[in-house]
């Protein structure tokens, strides 16, 4: 079946512009996560959605970052007034449930470059 998809695969933007990154999770997965991976670094948690519960936004680095999710489907991560330090790969993952020991299925990521 289809895995997690993300678009665009690459995004180059100028400093100060806003960007939107999209994630389509696996159908039926109620939990959705966004991570950031800087070059040579591990994954940094950004935000987590679980069904209709309030999202866990504890990883968002600043108020320039926000994310939305429509029901249990598509999610959009928005970065406003981008800065060069925002350059990274943004990874989305989904899992069957939020609670409990469930593996996360990752998309291929969006590589964001801020010039």
């Amino acid at each position: 079946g289809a895995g997690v998809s993300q678009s665009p695969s690459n995004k180059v933007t100028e400093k100060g512009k806003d960007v939107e990154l999209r994630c389509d999770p696996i159908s039926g997965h109620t939990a959705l996560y966004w991570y950031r991976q800087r070059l040579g670094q591990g994954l940094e948690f950004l935000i987590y959605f679980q069904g209709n519960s309030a999202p866990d936004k504890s990883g968002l680095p600043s108020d320039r970052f926000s994310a939305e999710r429509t029901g249990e489907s598509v999610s959009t991560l928005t970065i406003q007034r981008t800065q060069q330090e925002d350059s990274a790969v943004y990874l989305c993952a989904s899992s069957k449930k939020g609670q409990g020991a469930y593996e996360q299925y990752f998309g291929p990521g969006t590589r964001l470059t801020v010039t």
Partner: protein
Amino acid sequence: SQKIEQNSEALNIQEGKTATLTCNYTNYSPAYLQWYRQDPGRGPVFLLLIRENEKEKRKERLKVTFDTTLKQSLFHITASQPADSATYLCAFRRRGGATNKLIFGTGTLLAVQP
């Protein structure tokens, strides 16, 4: 803050040998640990999960151990093959809480030489 450490240096081994990767954590007690494989330009792929009350888990040529006293997990690949070359990430979910967010290590690059 919670911290998870993996060998930052690449691990080079000969084909057929056993690769052993280390994951150490501090300042928290994981409910479980997960191991992922990441190839260049791709998202991580789940490999194995081990719970805090489990000592060892196996899957084909893979074995994971979890020592809560040492605060350490070891990941073994037996009879390694060049196709096993990749970055391996460990991640833990802390006990309790309403979120399933994972805390990831920086990963260890494994290179298996033919």
